[in-house]
């Protein structure tokens, strides 16, 4: 749970991911009483996600896990709502002693890059303890550079070719979680776009393995995003524990197929890649949404975001995809 002191609330891609999670819960709320759920997450010193969830649904059972003494003390000072219990506890201990009555939403918001196995194992330990309709969101590092840096050199000081580097990356990953990686993957998947796919498919294996003892249950992925605010690409997957037989009906009842940002298949994911826009640019673009497409807007803007027109359009397209969740950061004086 390192990263507790990082000002996540100012990271716009992560902020969008948090808003998207609320969007997903709104859809699930058609079938499930989200307000009655206990929410568990690693709130950090800022407890952003707690404010958001409470604001949207009014949940009153909120638990924050924090293993860092300093962050925990600061959290207690900052705690924005009286209904948040800030526990000074490691997520592994929490999972081991899991005793929530009623349904829960658990967000395993991991930051550390080198502990993928521990994170997978924790997720596996948690799943069988959960009940039908419990919701789990798991976030972990999906940056292939954390396996081996793209600027690495060989022993003679020469820069490694992509093939050599990716083979080394795959070796590292294989040592960590090789038993979860489906056989169809090899070193060629160790790219920025390929690595999240491998992790997602490996998590599918981990989830299925964890639920072996409850063969009528499955963990259904609902949304899956990658985002990159600082140097690290993260992958975040949200899913729900369902009975096998109700899967199709549940997806239909929550209109998840109509939810543009849903990802109902393991291995797939959507990228959150927001451009940094000025307030004026934003207001201008928003005036044309949701009716206009990126090309029309670009024409009206009379400038490009990038020397390459296609890249510029891509940036606009990405904004259009997530404009409803785009956060505004302003300087406020108290």
């Amino acid at each position: 749970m390192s990263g507790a002191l990082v000002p996540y609330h100012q990271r716009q891609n992560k902020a969008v991911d948090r808003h998207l999670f609320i969007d997903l819960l709104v859809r699930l709320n058609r079938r499930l009483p989200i307000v009655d759920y206990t929410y568990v997450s690693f709130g950090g010193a800022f407890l952003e996600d707690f404010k958001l969830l409470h604001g949207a649904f009014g949940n009153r059972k909120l638990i924050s896990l924090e293993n860092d003494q300093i962050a925990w003390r600061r959290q207690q000072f900052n705690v924005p709502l009286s209904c948040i219990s800030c526990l000074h506890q490691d997520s592994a201990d929490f999972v081991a002693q899991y005793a929530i009555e009623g349904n829960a939403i658990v967000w395993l918001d991991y930051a550390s890059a080198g502990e993928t196995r521990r994170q997978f194992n924790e997720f596996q330990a948690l799943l069988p303890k959960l009940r039908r309709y419990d919701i789990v969101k798991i976030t972990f590092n999906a940056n292939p550079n954390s396996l081996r840096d793209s600027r690495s050199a060989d022993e003679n000081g020469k820069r490694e070719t992509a093939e050599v580097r990716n083979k080394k990356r795959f070796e590292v990953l294989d040592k960590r979680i090789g038993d979860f990686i489906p056989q169809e993957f090899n070193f060629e998947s160790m790219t920025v776009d390929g690595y999240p796919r491998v992790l997602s498919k490996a998590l599918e294996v981990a989830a299925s393995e964890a639920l072996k003892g409850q063969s009528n249950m499955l963990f259904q992925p609902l949304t899956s995003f990658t985002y990159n605010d600082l140097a690290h690409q993260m992958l975040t997957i949200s899913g729900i524990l369902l009975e096998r037989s109700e899967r199709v009906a549940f997806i239909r009842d929550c209109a998840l197929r109509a939810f543009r940002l849903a990802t109902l298949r393991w291995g797939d994911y959507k990228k959150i890649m927001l451009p940094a826009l000025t307030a004026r640019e934003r207001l201008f673009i928003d005036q044309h949404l949701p009716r206009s497409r990126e090309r029309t807007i670009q024409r009206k803007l009379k400038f490009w975001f990038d020397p390459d027109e296609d890249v510029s359009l891509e940036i606009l397209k990405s904004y259009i995809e997530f404009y409803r969740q785009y956060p505004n950061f302003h300087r406020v004086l108290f």
Partner: protein
Amino acid sequence: MAIKGHEVGKRETVQATPTKRFFVSMLTRDIDLPDAILDLLDNSVDGVLRSTKDKASAKSDQPYAGFWARIVFNERKFQISDNCGGIPFKLAKDYAFMMGRPLDEGDSDIPTVGMYGIGMKRAIFKMGTSSRVVSQTKSDAFEVTISNKWMGDDKDWNLPLKFVKPPLKHTGVVLNVEDLHKGVSTLFAKEGSSFEHEFITTVAQHYGFIINKGFKVFVNDKTVEPQPMTLLWTKKDSAPEGKELAPYLYTAEMDGVAVRLAVGFYDQMLTESELDEEQVAKRTKDDAGWTIICNDRVVVHNNKTRITGWGEAGVPSYHNQFIGISGIVYFQSNEAWKLPITTTKRGVDTSSELYLYVKEFMREGLKKFTSYTNVWKQDPDEERKISSKAERVPISSILSMKPDAKWTKVKNRGNEFKRNVSLPQPTTKNPKRQIRFSKSQKEIEVVATHLFGDATTEPSIVGEACFDQIYKGAGK
């Protein structure tokens, strides 16, 4: 007291015939689903051996080239199809569908692994209650159907066999199982089941040798890639005398059985901090231990128990210090009954005289490498220098080596050799000792920040740096 009923002295018989349900439940109880499906793959491989029996290709290093088996499963059905020659009519009529294998069945002259006597039916009944088997050989094509109705009828023990027009473009077998049992159907589901992943891994482990020799296995259209097996071996030209890290090898020809044995390191020894991180890393111990192969088929995979010599006759029991040690024993014979294999093919026959003899060499090899880890654990950095010079050599090329000057005859026999060169030893002039102590995390962080400006520095590095500083001062 007089009781009414049958007349005293009258004789009757009672039913003692088995019911099919009894057979089915007994047959399928003690086998796992993946093993049951492997039985079907074994039958395909035996088909290859049968069809290449008198051909030159059987002697090549790719005897299975061109042959394949495809396994497809989902919630509703299971299918395995192959191009491995088909089940000959006589074999089908006489025993392939019988419950058990009769004594004299005619495949005794090829190195088979499958056993039609039990495997096929067991696999079918493990999965479901109805099945259709189509076989096409060069001379005939026929289908045998097992229906739900047949399953429920304890009087009818014959199965209908119907000759059909050749339905396939090649010789081979197509076996379908439907009406899957609920648990099996759930495992075969695309969503929320890790069975496919685990089964592919199992096939890769158990059929690695056969696949490397040209056979192809597809599971739900995915090609199964064999798991590479390698052992560390220092390049010949870069190894000064006494610095060669090489596997222990043994080879013998005994009573019609060829034996090849190799044991060594498949990976470098783990450092202490890596051992601590065991939970972080993949369960690497899954890759350690002995693998035993009979006629190309893996019968024991990465075993770390007394069955393979661990923890007996002076060899220590397996624990994580030995995580890098891996060995392989390969038995081959045209007379399958001479192989040290249990009737279920899921294990080695530990009472086999041949196996007990070979086990002595397994233990000798193990002892050599467990001792090596013992003598070097005081100085892992120095050991790393040696082992990092070693290359990963594929096990197939190790097992096919011919004895040369570095091999010695065993007990001066002409049919048994071993290669047992000394492993590198630490220098004894200034031996190293280990210092161990525990301090609170906070204190370690304070010292780590003081020395390195980084509170997250590994405790072992912090400890060593403290010692080095004091040692410098102490020498003045």
